[in-house]
């Protein structure tokens, strides 16, 4: 598959959080990520960068 994968950026490190993300929903207390299987994860972070040709979304902690 090649939906977007979401990573948390910590300095130079990129930590994979969720693969095959279908929905990214900003919430009051973070960002809700939902993959194509319906699996959800709330991350206390904000979007840092999206490189959609590479299917990557980078978050950083708040």
């Amino acid at each position, binding site marked *: *598959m090649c939906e977007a994968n979401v990573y948390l950026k910590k300095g130079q490190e990129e930590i994979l959080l969720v693969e095959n993300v279908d929905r990214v929903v900003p919430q009051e207390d973070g960002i809700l990520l939902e993959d194509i299987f319906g699996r959800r994860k709330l991350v206390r972070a904000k979007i840092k960068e999206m490189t959609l040709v590479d299917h990557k979304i980078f978050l950083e902690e708040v």
Partner: protein
Amino acid sequence: MRIMVIDGQGGGIGKHLTEKIRKGLGPEVEIIAIGTNSVATSLMLRAGANDGATGENAVIQNADQVDFIVGSLAVIVAHSMLGELTPAMAEAVGKSKAKKILLPINRSGIEIVGTMAEPLPHLIDALVERLRKEMPHV
């Protein structure tokens, strides 16, 4: 032509499959939505399925009553979908004489060599096209 769409958990994949099959192949195709839970069944019914049912026995009773079974690879993997897809369901699908046209996606750690890394909508479009080939009059 009768097509069984099987999905579980949130039902999102089944919903998209049902929508695109209905849109692509028209109203004469009969879509039977079988969910491993009622949420998935309900979502597929709202997406345009003609009929729907939920659970293990629904899969067992209907698997041989359709021409095609579509869904993700998980529908032939016992204990997939966080355990919602029971061994009896996987057996019923496997034993069915219906042609199985499946999306090469799953959460069971199974990788299919030779498949393209495509976004889900593209995979679903390809599945609908594959069904269309079986229906020259559509």
